[in-house]
């Protein structure tokens, strides 16, 4: 499955990047491809582009704050969790997201 994700937390110092790493590791382990955009203290990094969205099956938001450019994702299958969920157990986040939309 092709997944795109956005991670963001209020301080943007630590959890944004921990969640990114968690999702990347989980996707690899579960056999999916993922691109994770971070919206943290360094602004928007690894930005998800229209080209990425064309092939995306699923969008995951691991966020505790309002994200920038959210309208990019409208009409897509979005699964949103608090940023801590992706730090604690990113495998479960991905599995639950897939379960929700693909059964």
């Amino acid at each position, binding site marked *: 499955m092709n997944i795109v994700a956005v991670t963001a937390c209020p301080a943007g110092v*630590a959890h944004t990047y921990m969640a990114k790493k968690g999702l990347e590791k989980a996707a690899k382990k579960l056999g999916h491809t993922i691109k994770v955009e971070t919206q*943290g203290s*360094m602004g928007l990094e690894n930005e998800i582009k229209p080209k990425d969205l064309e092939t995306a099956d699923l969008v995951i938001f691991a966020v505790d704050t309002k994200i920038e450019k959210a309208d990019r994702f409208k009409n897509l299958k979005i699964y949103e969790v608090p940023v*801590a969920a992706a730090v*604690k157990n990113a495998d479960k986040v991905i599995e639950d997201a897939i379960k929700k939309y693909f059964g």
Partner: protein
Amino acid sequence: MELGDLITIDLIEFNVFASTKEEVLRKVATHLYKAGRVSDEEAYFQALVNRENATTTGFGKGIAIPHANIEEVTLPTISVLKLNTPVEWDSLDDKPVNIVIALAVPSKAKGTIHLQLLAKLSEELMEDEFVEKLHKANSKDEIYQYITNVFHKE
């Protein structure tokens, strides 16, 4: 400021005694104030407490990363405390914490190299092998080495 100044041996402490999360945060604030890293101990302490109240920074595996970005931080800083006895932190895995990695970031530091290094360190904390090394380390030098090695990793 050199990249290495983000953490110095003096910012690492072993055998820290504290019985509550609040006590640990107070020690962090006092330590960073004395080290000249924050200009206002109380403001930094309050910011750490507020951040914890929003959501716990105890991400599991016995480690917490309390942090605050406020104006009263003089220099971007990483400080590591190894606690003598584990302290309850409402962690994501419900386990108490015995390593505290405190971060202090000046609010105007947005987008700097130091923030990139903190991001790198945060990512590395998701690696069990790295966490294991921090737990096993029994000298300040070891902790210093492990953390600064992360900065140089591609």
